[in-house]
């Protein structure tokens, strides 16, 4: 009974419904290898960024600047490439800069005690602005095919896009970190009661800082993926993606107040949003329906647990 009411279970159930329903209504096109491949490509960046963002939100903070870091990293790839750097150098440098961008967020939040919502709204504008400064209105597209192929071909011998393979690998690492390690335990404690965590000798500031750094670095990796997938480095890449990622994380059952949530739920949330979107487009549903469905899913994600709780107490009260 207890586990039945869990939101993760409901998400898995919804996923199965969408998969079967989609399969029937599209005559098998939905779960076909080709479509699943594209579905995987479409959710790659969101899945990647959702991983560290889950940890950030569990720790009671938020990072709205991730999409801008993605854009900045994309712009930097283009800029360095134009400057003649080899990609082998560019990629680590760009990921490092992403981590640095995350560190700026983290330092402002931990050192000055500013609310992360405010800080990252600021850096959302700042990093996107820097991306524009770096690359302006130009787009850089002449990347070698060997790299752009990562975004258009599957891992050899499978039907899995490279970004998803990468996300899966990171998901395992993040899952262990959050749910099986003392680090993760500290993250939960910080989210639930920051002062209590500090009084327990948990290095609150350091851990928070590391989470923001992680978010920045992974967002930069997502920028690399994005750039190669579209073989286009531009300053406005990933514009507005932050709300989609936050929506996916919240849909996954992570509490916006921190202290509660699971990575499994978030991955299910990402899959559900992406799958539903893919299915609706496949069925030529108009975008407005897509937008509305995204919103409704979010509402359901918070209302459903609250409603089941009420029903449970009602049932108890009547018997």
């Amino acid at each position, binding site marked *: 009974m207890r586990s039945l009411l869990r939101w993760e279970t409901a998400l898995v159930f919804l996923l199965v419904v969408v998969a079967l329903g989609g399969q029937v209504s599209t005559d098998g096109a939905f779960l076909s290898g080709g479509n699943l491949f594209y579905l995987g490509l479409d959710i790659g960046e969101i899945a990647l960024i959702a991983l560290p963002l889950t940890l950030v939100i569990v720790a009671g903070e938020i990072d*709205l600047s991730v999409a801008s870091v993605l854009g900045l990293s994309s712009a930097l790839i283009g800029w360095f490439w134009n400057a003649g750097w080899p990609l082998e150098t560019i990629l680590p440098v760009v990921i490092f800069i992403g981590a640095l961008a995350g560190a700026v967020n983290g330092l*402002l939040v931990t050192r*000055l*005690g*500013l*609310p992360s*919502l*405010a*800080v990252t*709204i*600021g*850096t*959302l*504008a*700042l*990093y*996107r*602005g*820097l991306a*524009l*400064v770096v690359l*302006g*209105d130009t787009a850089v597209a002449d990347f070698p095919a060997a790299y752009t192929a990562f975004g258009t071909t599957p891992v050899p011998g499978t039907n899995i896009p490279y970004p998803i393979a990468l996300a899966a690998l990171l998901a395992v690492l993040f899952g262990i970190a959050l749910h099986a390690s003392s680090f993760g335990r500290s993250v939960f404690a910080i989210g639930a009661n920051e002062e209590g965590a500090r009084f327990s000798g948990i290095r609150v500031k350091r851990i928070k800082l590391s989470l923001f750094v992680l978010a920045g670095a992974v967002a930069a990796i997502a920028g690399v993926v994005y750039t190669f997938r579209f073989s286009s480095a531009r300053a406005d890449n990933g514009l*507005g993606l932050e*709300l989609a990622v*936050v*929506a996916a994380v*919240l849909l996954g059952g992570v*509490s*916006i*107040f921190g202290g509660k949530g699971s990575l499994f739920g978030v991955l299910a949330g990402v899959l559900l949003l992406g799958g539903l979107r893919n299915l609706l487009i496949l069925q030529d549903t*108009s*975008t*407005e*329906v*897509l*937008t*509305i*469905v*995204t*919103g*409704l*899913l*979010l*509402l359901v*994600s*918070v*209302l459903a647990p*609250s*409603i089941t709780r009420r029903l449970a107490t009602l049932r108890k009260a009547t018997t």
Partner: protein
Amino acid sequence: MTTRLDAPSAPPTTARTARKLSDRVGRVRELGILVALALVVVPTALVNPRFIQPQSLRDLLLNASIVALLAVGQTLVVITRNVDLSVGSVLGLSAFLTAQQFADHPGTPLLAGIGFGVAVGLACGLLNGLLVALGNVPSLVVTLGTLYVFRGIDYALAQGRQVNAADLPDALLDLGSARVAGVPVLVLVTVVVIVVAAVYLRSYRSGRELYAIGSNPDAAVLAGIPVAKRTLTAFVASGLVAGLAGALWVARYGTVDAAAGTGLELQVVAAVVVGGVAIFGGSGTVAGAALGALLLGTITSCLVVLRIPAFWQQAIAGALLLSAITVDRLLALRLAKALRKSEGSSHA
């Protein structure tokens, strides 16, 4: 069994100093924004005197007035430890429906049309409020959801249609540029809304209860405050104001499609935060929030006027926003420290 230490006559005379300081903390926020505003405006005006010509000042106020309106509504919500991310979408929906109403029914009286827009906003706010207050669920998630839902409905209703100035009655368009004693009507409307909200929050029981709810939600329940009702009120007010802003948007811009106001929510939240409203509820004023909106709008305008290259403008705006909240925070920290020392010094 348990005798405890007895305090002789209570010593502290610290109350007065502490109070003066805490008053200053309260006032310094709005003052700080005004100073920041001056810091932005004066150099710009020195470089380009045109910046403080009447037309230009009017434009500044006009541009800020719509975000300021939304910020006022948002403040009511944020004070209760909630947030309304759907304001941009509500504004869009209200703006489109108002414009459509005027375009499709050319005889619509001016006030009736605006009232229609306000009603649309009120309905959206009511939905938000009911979900948050009755569902007892986090408002950030709910309003992120309705952000999508309202925008989707907007698109579905508009079907790619755009209402143009030519379709709108002149009375409405004139409202967008009309002035009373040199002050644009839209600005006056905004000021009236700010004053009403400020007085309500300061001097009415239900207004103070909004602060109480945001300050300590559990205690608010125990104190017998109708938390659900007040929260609902805050969201309804925010929706209503966003509806009004939507109608005024039509008057101001004259061209409306389903995308109006997209992404405005972050600007509004930024204005509220810069205006010194605590994002976790319990403190802040509408005047501060409105000034925050004015400051952000002014920064954007200044960058254009100062001929900062287009590509630099966003980065600089972001950096300035960050410095604004940082400076505000540092000031607050310093005052808190001063407060601690002044209280402590009476011990010694």
